[in-house]
């Protein structure tokens, strides 16, 4: 008797688990293909979801001027007035650099990105300011290649595409504690060590 009650409980529990997988409220609809694959989708480190396309630094050099990047970032990416895209230093503004410890605030410099896909994604989603969606996938690959080459990370004739981009090794990759493969991140539980200073 006891066993059968136990068995019944297991059945109920299983049914419950299955039921939880179904919809309860039946609101919302299935997205269209276009909605599922927006041009401005967030791209992760492994590059899944990157659109087909390719580009090189040589093509990117032309686009860098033709698409107006140079207007904010300077003729070669190192002059500003916008964030400096070439070199280690963030801004070139001494006041700003002092504020961020000698310009070591890595939010700016291309070499300080953890993954090359971040650069692609940032250009694709956010640039040019106020004209997002203006660049084609090929153009974003080319501009990414240009910036990586100008910072000494890839060769001028390297072809970047949806397969090669995620494989680019960024020099700052080891500088961050926050990495996808760190167990502290995949196994989050309330109250991470940082709140236990004492």
């Amino acid at each position, binding site marked *: 008797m006891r066993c059968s009650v136990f068995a019944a409980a297991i059945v109920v529990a299983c049914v419950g688990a299955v039921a939880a997988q179904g919809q309860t409220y039946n609101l*919302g609809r299935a997205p269209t293909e276009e909605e599922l694959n927006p041009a401005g989708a967030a791209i992760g480190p492994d590059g899944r979801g990157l659109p087909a396309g390719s580009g090189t630094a040589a093509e990117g050099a032309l686009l860098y001027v033709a698409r107006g990047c140079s207007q904010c970032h300077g003729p070669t990416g190192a002059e500003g007035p916008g964030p400096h895209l070439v070199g280690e230093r963030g801004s070139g503004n001494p*006041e700003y650099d002092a504020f961020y410890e000698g310009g070591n605030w890595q939010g700016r410099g291309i070499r300080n990105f953890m993954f090359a896909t971040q650069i692609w994604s*940032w250009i694709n989603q*956010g640039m040019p300011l*106020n004209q997002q969606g203006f660049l084609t996938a090929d153009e974003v690959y080319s501009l990414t290649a240009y910036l990586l080459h100008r910072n000494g990370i890839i060769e001028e004739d390297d072809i970047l595409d949806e397969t090669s981009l995620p494989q680019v090794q960024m020099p700052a990759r080891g500088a961050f*504690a926050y990495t996808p493969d760190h167990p502290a991140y995949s196994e989050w539980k309330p109250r991470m060590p940082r709140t236990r*200073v004492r």
Partner: protein
Amino acid sequence: MHAKRATTRRQVLKGGGAALVGLAAGAGTASGQTLRTTMPDNLARELMAYGRRSRYVETGRITLDNKVNMQMHGDPYGFDALTPLGEQMGIITPAPLHFISSHGDPPPDVDPAKHRLMIHGMVERPLVFTMDELKRLPSVSRINFIECLANRPQPGEERTLEQNHGLIGCSEWTGVPLSLLLKEAGVKNGASWVVGESLGRTQQARSFPLGKAMMDDTLVAYGQNGEPVQPHNGYPLRLVIPGFEGKFQLKWLRGIKVTDQPYVTYWEHSSFTRRERSPLGAYWEQGPKSVITHPAGGQRLPGHGYFTIVGFAWSGTGAVSRVEVSTDGGRTWQNAEIEGPALPMAMTRFKLPWTWDGSEAVLQSRCIDERGDVQPTPEEYGAFWGEYAAPHGNVIQPWRVTSVGRVLNAL
């Protein structure tokens, strides 16, 4: 006494402009009578539909428009505006005063009738919800703080309460638990992360652990303090991830993508997780923290005598259980009284009676949360995190009251 006051008022009414001067002077006399003038009729009618504070109340967010801060976020559009903490009453920050930290995205102009939220990625059934559909789902209202990870006290005698602590606000957020939406879509085995996607100009995204998303406290919020979330705070939809640093609580939410890896997007890693600054790098929950908001940096005491020391305490991992206050530079500590509710991951008020004898004093508070975690001293913090006062600093904030009543930052 009554007769005398009535006479004064009649004289005023008769006397026109000259009497108004007398009236203003009268306000400061022993009669203590508040003048009875009225708001113009047209304004009174206008404000029947949607109220506005008195014209005598001028509290506003403190905007930082100096060059360094403008460039801080990498473009001329980045800016911060601080909550005027010293003026706040109770634990709710009025939405128009809730701090703003903009990373290059001015608020988009969103028509809620056209807005959609898509749940996609590693789910059985990707789903698209309208705002109306979201509001039909069972809603939850919770009071939670949102604090920018950069909210940290820094040294500098002249630094004010708001400069050191103003990147925090506390609201009652109303919305749908994210876990409910994820269950509707059916999370696939192997999923471990969630990426929030924004429709802001730069379409920013942030990833955080699925475990937090599945805790019922994480909300897709459309309401703030009883009305729609304000544009600067994410209208029409935002993520509220209680206790987590503000950068994850994405505004202008358009998508939730379930994944098996963190996306480590630009603003997630940006300057915040350099190994040399924080070997653990684990920047999720804001630590136990408190600050005295009166008397506090930038304020001035009118003279010695009685004051109520008041302040806020909060913790990213639960409720505040106790706040201790020292009025002698940390030599002795007393339990402060908790005033009002002490809710999990919410700003909590504390107070302590204090009579200032006019001599120099150093006031400070420390928070102990329900897990027993204690707000650290700068020394304890530094020993744990390294010398650099990283973002997230939750060190004890001492305020020095000088003999003339100026209140200075004593860090």
